[in-house]
């Protein structure tokens, strides 16, 4: 195994260099080679592959593979959760949204953040006390294993694949602009590295990759934000006043529109148009978090409920701080990037490399070439770390929920289960690479929205009800969960994002972009109705089993050492 590992490691390490030497298609919007970024990125890859090698030696049981042996501390796990959350999409996307639209970017950040306290108050501890490796463990604790595992695994896999494709497409485009690599090579490099981290290092390597990246990203973002504020001597009044003035001078098409519309970028603008959309977006952002499989998995890496609570506390702190930074970075970019034509693509009226590059250009404006290199490398590392976490949760759904629990009925050899996990990681990785390349020219933003909507409408309701409602039965959970899942997919397909933007139809059949308010309600109602009308013997036993589940949730009795039986 280690020979294969060494060969692969060598292969990946050198492949981008070969690609670099190969001719780059002249049509691609290349920037000049960013040498600092490439050197820093290779240092990151070398360190993380070293960690993967170290972790591979320590990953002997399924508990090591799925849950890093359960030995991660609350602080480390808090950083890792924050890392899973601070994807390239939130770092580049939210700072760019603030850059283009001002205050509206902050509305997104707030929605993403306020889900955390709710997870802590109502779920984190219960997850830790009831579960072993995946959130399907919780749902199938007192309900029928086979149907619910299958449904949960399906929810996990659809969330993971959609989210992965979006990340892969983003990665390819970002790396093409930052490093001057062709799109396909970039996607293959990211895919290969994430397969290596997951298949060889399991959760231990994935967690440490995430922790290192979180520290790099937090320090890099802090530097950009404070450097931007230092230009106005840390005077916030001056900071915003000069940013607003700078926007009036900007050559950027988005900025010209904001100025000609007479919008105040320091107040809410056109992001939310009607109350239903506002509440629906709010629900998806808030409860989507509580149903994201790669984040829920992190609660099983800590030793007990106390550490689980601490990890959410640290995560909330890091994520909140990070979002305040992205707000400053967005306005900092208006102040320091927008007035300079060197950062502009004057033909298209966008930023050089696309409008998602606000934070990257600001790093150059504040810290020069060296710092631009650092932030580019961090942005790449961010994508790698997040896709690894996603791949691991997808692989666990296949091996733990479908193979070991649903197909083999829990009677499975650990070595064999781990083999299946690794193969699943390989297959998911290849699917992600393939689809990442296929979707190059597509607008994939809706995939992130869809992943969040599925997480909020199919995963979250049954997870929440199985913890908090005695009356939930297998029938209710199955029907309610399926209704939530189908409703989300149908509504998103019929909405403007897919029906008009992707399928090129003239008008949407469903008027709202975000289905969460309808699909979540439907999932809850369906689960409730089909549970209370379930008079079967099985349903009675499931309700009776709630008492024992509650004892374990509340006290943790039975969960210590429960990871092996």
């Amino acid at each position, binding site marked *: 195994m280690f020979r294969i590992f060494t060969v692969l490691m060598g292969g990946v390490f050198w492949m981008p260099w070969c690609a670099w030497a190969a001719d780059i298609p002249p049509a691609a919007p290349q920037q000049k080679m960013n040498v600092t970024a490439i050197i820093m990125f290779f240092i990151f890859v070398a360190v993380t592959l070293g960690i993967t090698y170290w972790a591979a030696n320590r990953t002997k049981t399924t508990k090591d593979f799925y849950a890093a042996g359960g030995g991660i501390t609350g602080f480390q796990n808090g950083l890792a959760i924050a890392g899973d959350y601070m994807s390239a999409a939130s770092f580049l996307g939210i700072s760019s949204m603030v850059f283009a639209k001002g205050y509206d970017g902050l509305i997104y950040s707030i929605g993403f953040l306020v889900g955390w306290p709710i997870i802590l108050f109502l779920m984190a501890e219960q997850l830790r006390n009831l579960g072993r490796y995946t959130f399907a463990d919780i749902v199938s604790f007192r309900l029928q294993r086979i149907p619910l595992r299958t449904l949960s695994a399906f929810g996990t896999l659809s969330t993971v694949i959609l989210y992965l494709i979006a990340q892969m497409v983003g990665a390819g485009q970002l790396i093409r602009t930052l490093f001057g690599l062709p799109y396909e090579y970039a996607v293959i490099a990211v895919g290969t590295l994430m397969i290596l981290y997951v298949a060889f290092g399991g959760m231990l390597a994935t967690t440490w990759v995430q922790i290192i990246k979180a520290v790099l990203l937090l320090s890099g973002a802090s530097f950009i934000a404070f450097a931007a504020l230092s230009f106005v001597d840390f005077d916030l009044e001056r900071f915003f006043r000069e940013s607003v003035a700078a926007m009036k001078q900007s050559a950027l098409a988005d900025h010209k529109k904001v100025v000609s519309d007479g919008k105040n970028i320091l107040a809410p603008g056109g992001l939310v148009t009607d*109350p239903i959309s506002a509440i629906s977006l709010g629900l998806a952002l808030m409860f989507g978090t509580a149903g994201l499989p790669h984040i829920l998995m992190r609660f099983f890496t800590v030793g007990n409920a106390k550490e689980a609570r601490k990890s959410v506390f640290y995560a909330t702190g890091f994520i909140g701080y990070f979002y305040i930074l992205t707000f400053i970075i967005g306005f900092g970019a208006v102040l320091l990037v927008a007035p300079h034509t060197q950062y502009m693509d004057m033909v298209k009226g966008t930023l050089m490399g696309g409008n998602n590059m606000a934070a990257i250009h600001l790093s150059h404006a504040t810290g020069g070439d060296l710092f631009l290199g650092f932030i580019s490398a961090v942005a790449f590392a961010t994508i790698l770390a997040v896709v690894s976490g996603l791949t691991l949760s997808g692989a666990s759904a296949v091996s733990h929920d479908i193979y070991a629990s649903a197909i083999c009925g829990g009677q499975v050899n650990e070595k064999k289960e781990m083999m299946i996990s690794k193969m699943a990681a390989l297959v998911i990785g290849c699917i992600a690479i393939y689809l990442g390349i296929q979707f190059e020219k597509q607008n994939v933003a809706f995939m992130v929205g869809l992943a969040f909507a599925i997480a909020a409408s199919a995963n979250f309701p049954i997870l929440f009800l199985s913890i908090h409602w005695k009356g939930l039965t297998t029938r209710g959970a199955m029907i309610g969960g399926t209704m939530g899942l189908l409703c989300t997919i149908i509504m998103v397909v019929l909405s403007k994002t897919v029906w008009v933007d992707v399928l090129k139809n003239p008008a949407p059949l469903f008027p709202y972009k975000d289905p969460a308010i309808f699909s979540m309600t439907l999932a809850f109602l369906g689960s409730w109705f089909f549970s209370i009308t379930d008079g079967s013997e099985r349903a009675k036993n499931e309700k009776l089993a709630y008492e*024992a589940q509650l004892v374990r949730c509340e006290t943790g009795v039975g969960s210590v050492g429960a990871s092996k039986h």
Partner: protein
Amino acid sequence: MVKESGDDSAQFKRILSNPKYHELVRKRRRFAWTLSIIMLVIYYAFIVVIAFKPAILATQITSDSIITIGIPIGVGIILSAFILTWIFVMRANGAYDRLTSEIKELSK
């Protein structure tokens, strides 16, 4: 499904017959739900203002300042999320954990 060993289920019965356990469950649930509702109210109040009366957030903090009250309010919501989690963790890792370990001791 988790198979409980004989020991475990006897322990479950002892915990269930302990009034302190029921007190813990009641208190902690009320505490968790109170904090959750506070968070939800803060967040959805914000969302509703954005949906119906966005002009409120565009008010300047002082008459000669360009900064709108929307900015401190936004940052304030982020801080409130952090403070609420802090309150929860302090209480859960302190008083509730002590009560839990007492209950577990008694049930052994």
